[in-house]
């Protein structure tokens, strides 16, 4: 499986790990800046179209009755979902003392932060009068109104902003020992930059003592936060009485789907990065194997949810639900639905094979399909259910406009741009934790690259 051009060092030392990660932070070349420019251009187009939308009105989007939520909200839910797996890998797996988490969790956390930043744009994009966005905050005012805390949209505002704050905090705190390492090895403006971010960390026993407690507690707090945020997002839909939306399983179903799309996105980012930056000695097939298992597990949970929803609809024979589900499978959005089933449920079943889990190209393809499938899942649930609501005279199919398409593309570019910048300027692999778990790294290097030598 390892097509390394040089022999892999199966007995790395702390210094080897440092060297490997510092190499990623070397000044990037022309290709990198070309990539950033390309992303920035797409972001620029999206920003221009959004500005036009603010000026002209939401009519430039495809939103028409009855589909008042469509692509923008799909993007919102999709990006919040992506964000969740980062916290899962870094916080929840920390609590489980999982050994393979160390090489990949920083990348996942970074992905989380930028995914939440991307997601947070979309409620604003979706607002007709963006300049009134501050009305969501509870402060004494003369409008004879306070935010309606009974509304799931207000729960959303609290949940997503809490998530943004806590994941940024978690990332920043976890970075401190690593950034101190980078500071000590750097010169010039970088040294100052890292020194500020490290807050003067020297790794004394007192500092570590408080750090460990703080990190453990943040992980313990972030874990229920992950579950609650995407549950709250799912309740944006489940609180309605709309068939296809009103379902008690939405909360854990969306959480599982979020983790599925997020871990798939981690792999989508990790596999090319590992190849481009020659990280085979730090991220081994063992790490990929375990991430793939999480993808498989969450894919099975999502399949369970689809089957349960279909079964209960059939069991209850509720006329409205039956029509909605029939339209979902065989109606206008049918092809999208079946593509979604392929990407989320059927294709990931190949991950039952250990060989596929450990090979980069098949795994990459599976995760691309998962990402497509999960985006489509949000769209099919949101726009598809709205299209066939209680009253047939209201039914209507949604078609995206160029504004929505370019803003969606721009959101991907925005995310990738921020992520790439972070990856080249800050430690994207946690040196500290990798060193702490160096025994497992050495074992996996031996087992994965030279299995015949025991």
């Amino acid at each position, binding site marked *: 499986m390892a097509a390394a051009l040089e022999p892999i060092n199966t007995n790395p030392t*702390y210094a080897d790990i440092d060297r490997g990660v510092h190499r990623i932070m070397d000044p990037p070349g022309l290709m990198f800046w070309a990539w950033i420019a390309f992303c920035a251009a797409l972001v620029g187009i999206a920003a221009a179209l959004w500005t036009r939308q603010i000026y002209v009105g939401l009519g430039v989007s495809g939103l028409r009755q009855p589909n008042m939520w469509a692509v923008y909200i799909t993007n919102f839910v999709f990006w919040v979902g992506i964000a969740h797996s980062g916290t899962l890998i870094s916080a929840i797996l920390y609590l489980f003392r999982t050994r393979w988490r160390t090489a990949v969790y920083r990348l996942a956390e970074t992905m989380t932060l930028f995914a939440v930043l991307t997601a947070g744009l979309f409620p604003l994009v979706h607002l007709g009068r963006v300049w009134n966005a501050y009305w969501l905050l509870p402060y004494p005012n003369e409008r004879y109104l306070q935010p309606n805390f009974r509304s799931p949209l207000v729960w959303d505002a609290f949940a997503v902003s809490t998530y943004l704050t806590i994941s940024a905090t978690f990332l920043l705190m976890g970075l401190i020992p690593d950034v*101190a390492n980078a500071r000590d090895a750097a010169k010039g403006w970088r040294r100052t930059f890292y020194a500020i971010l490290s807050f003067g960390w020297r790794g004394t026993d007192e500092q570590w003592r408080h750090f460990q407690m703080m990190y453990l507690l943040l992980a313990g707090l972030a874990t229920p936060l992950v579950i609650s945020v995407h549950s709250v997002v799912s309740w944006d839909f489940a609180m309605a009485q709309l068939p296809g939306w009103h379902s008690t399983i939405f909360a854990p179903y969306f959480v599982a789907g979020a983790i599925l799309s997020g871990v798939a996105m981690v792999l989508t980012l990790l596999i090319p990065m590992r190849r481009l930056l020659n990280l085979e000695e730090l991220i081994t097939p063992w790490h990929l194997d375990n991430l793939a298992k999480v993808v498989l597990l969450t894919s099975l949970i999502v399949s369970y949810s689809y089957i349960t929803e279909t079964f209960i609809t059939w069991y209850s024979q509720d006329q409205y639900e039956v029509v909605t589900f029939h339209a979902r499978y065989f109606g206008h959005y049918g092809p999208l639905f079946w593509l979604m089933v392929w990407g989320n449920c059927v294709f990931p079943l190949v991950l039952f094979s250990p060989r596929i889990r450990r090979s980069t190209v098949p795994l990459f393809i599976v995760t691309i399909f998962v990402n497509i499938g999960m985006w489509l899942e949000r769209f099919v649930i949101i726009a598809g259910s709205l299209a066939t609501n209680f009253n047939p005279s209201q039914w209507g199919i949604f078609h995206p406009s160029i504004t929505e398409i370019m803003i969606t593309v721009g959101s991907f570019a925005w995310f990738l741009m921020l992520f790439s910048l972070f990856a080249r300027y800050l430690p994207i692999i946690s040196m500290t934790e990798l060193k702490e778990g160096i025994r497992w790294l050495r074992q996996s290097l031996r087992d994965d690259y030279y299995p015949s030598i025991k």
Partner: protein
Amino acid sequence: MSAEIELVGTFADEEGCVHGVEVLKRAGIAYRVFAPIPSEHLLHAIGRGLSPVRAIVLIGAITGVLTGVAITVGTSWEWNLIVGGKPVVSWPPFIIIMFELMILFGGLSAALSFFFFARMPQLDPIAGYSERFSADRFGIAVECDEADSARIEAMMREAGAEEIAHEDPRTVPVAH
């Protein structure tokens, strides 16, 4: 009183550092450890107990819950409109807000109390620190009289120190 110097012992691995700590602790000498990785083993050997960050986080979390109650119930009473047929003070949705604020306040308390107790941002230099200690070496720094230094050096070498540097102590004292 002869001159005070800083002895900094460098250890190549965690075990050696733990051994050094145990030796110094037995002899009742004050020390400071520098480590590039978190080590439960080391913290256990030093034996300072659990950090008070815990208590602050608990207080923060409870504050968050109470703030949640105050905001939701307070604003609902202030403009008491019946919305969506739900009671003015309806607990199921309010529980969600209370929960989110609990996590928010708890998490921020964790970060802020960590900075407070670890005395960060650490703007002044710390005596004995070397750049190797964030890379691949552990270090133990002891501030002592010049007269004592030979004895302490011997203890550290016996515990497995690779090298021992003599430095001038700076403004920051060793004692915790």
